[in-house]
């Protein structure tokens, strides 16, 4: 078994249509339950917007605190699931289902074992 990070790539700015959002939340929750039921779920969560982020940098023996995300971009990490499956094909299958549920691009990346 191997663990994979499924990252939900969310567009920055703008708010989605409330109806669409309701549907997405419902579909993602259903998928999350399926992941539990099939024993592949390790961890999952949705994140607040990048504007709520704080960055820490170790510099010259001190740690500097700055407001805002590490990098501004057209997309940001909106949420993620960590799953434990046999191989990339299985991870891609869950990723596919997450892409359909979120209507957003999903990046699948293996953890170092």
């Amino acid at each position, binding site marked *: 078994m*191997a663990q994979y990070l499924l990252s939900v790539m969310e567009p920055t700015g703008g708010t989605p249509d409330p109806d669409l959002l309701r549907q997405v939340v419902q579909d993602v929750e259903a998928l999350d339950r399926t992941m539990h039921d099939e024993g592949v779920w390790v961890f999952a969560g949705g994140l607040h917007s990048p504007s709520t982020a704080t960055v820490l940098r170790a510099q010259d023996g001190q740690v500097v605190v700055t407001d805002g995300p590490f990098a501004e971009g057209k997309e940001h990490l909106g949420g993620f699931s960590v799953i434990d499956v*046999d191989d990339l094909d299985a991870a891609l299958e869950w990723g596919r289902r997450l892409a359909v549920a979120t209507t957003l691009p999903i990046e699948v990346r293996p953890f170092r074992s």
Partner: protein
Amino acid sequence: MTAHGAPDGPGGGPTDAERQVAAVFRAEHGRAVAILTRQLGDLGVAEEAVQEAFVVALRRWPTDGVPPSPAGWILTTARHRAIDHLRRESSRADRHAQAALLHARDEPPEVGPVQDDRLRLVFTCCHPALAVPAQVALTLRLLGGLTTAEIAHAFLVPEPTMAQRIVRAKAKIRDARIPYRVPRDEDLPDRLTGVLAVVYLVFTTGHTAVAGDSLVREDLCAEAIRLGRLLVELMPDEPEALGLLALMLLVDSRRATRVGPDGLVLLADQDRSRWDTAEIAEGQALVRRCLRRGRPGPYQVQAAIQAVHADAPTAAATDWRQVVALYDQLLVLAPSPVVSLNRAVAVAEVDGPAAGLALVDDLPLTRFHVFHAVRADLLRRLGRSAEAADEYAAAIAATDNAAERAHLTRTRDTLPPPTPAAGAESVSSG
């Protein structure tokens, strides 16, 4: 294997043995890597071990003679190398692999799951999680047994670039755990399409080198046909694999006549007596085999179109109605502007150049040199020389291939001069 004897006779010696090692390398590399990968569960270690076995062969065969079963010798030697490698590394996981390998030693080679192993390797090399250039490179390297230098040369990239591409792809296979298996039935059609596309890309790269002076890089065409044969051997029930092989054979049969001293020679002007009759016969037999299956696909229909051309003793005798009908079918199976362009060329043969031109005008292909070349030819046949000359110029500007440029330039230069007063206005009188 074709030759089993030790190269100690007159005229033999090291060179023969070296040639034989190279031949065995090409023929057996894919099989050896495939079997070892299954036994080891690690493609990288398997490939390295096979590589080392061939290095040993190069050292030993010239003096000891070529072993009775070169393929078996390579596999056994590679397996020993892999065990040595794992002993050196010697982590717990590797000890498990070691045990598997030692156990595997008694497995008779070249029977049972051997074909499945190569099929697994095909689908691993052509996994959609790898970029297409990486799929092509891995397929040629691991399955085809080409060296990195050969692949780099064929694709006109520096050798370090190609080496890095292959290393990165193998690292992704290992780290992301791209599985080593044939896809499930429900995924097979999609995945097979990807595999066939990789082999066809190798062929078309060889057939029309986009840049450089050689119109045909024959080694890539031959390699693609070899891979096509392997796919047919491994998946005899897949009509599209048959169709791809047929298509490549039929197109390749015209290779000798495609380029003349003055550049590209069009199908209509080729010396048909010099077409490769063996390749045509094999390709046509494959097309008939496809037809019997009754499961048409894009490669089969393209092969059928090429078979119609191969059937015609002269260009004038071509059954263009049949070609148009096949393009109609292809447009349903795999619609694309390029297919529409080719169909228009066939329509022009049946209904005249004006009908062809009307179909070509709106196609979104202005950056494709063939689009301009087709328009130029149709305009020329309509007597619209000035417009034809402009289209030839656009076609020449859009291709880097020297043979194609030479052909286009030559044709443009033989256009009848446009009427100075009327120019483009003389259209209707043409």
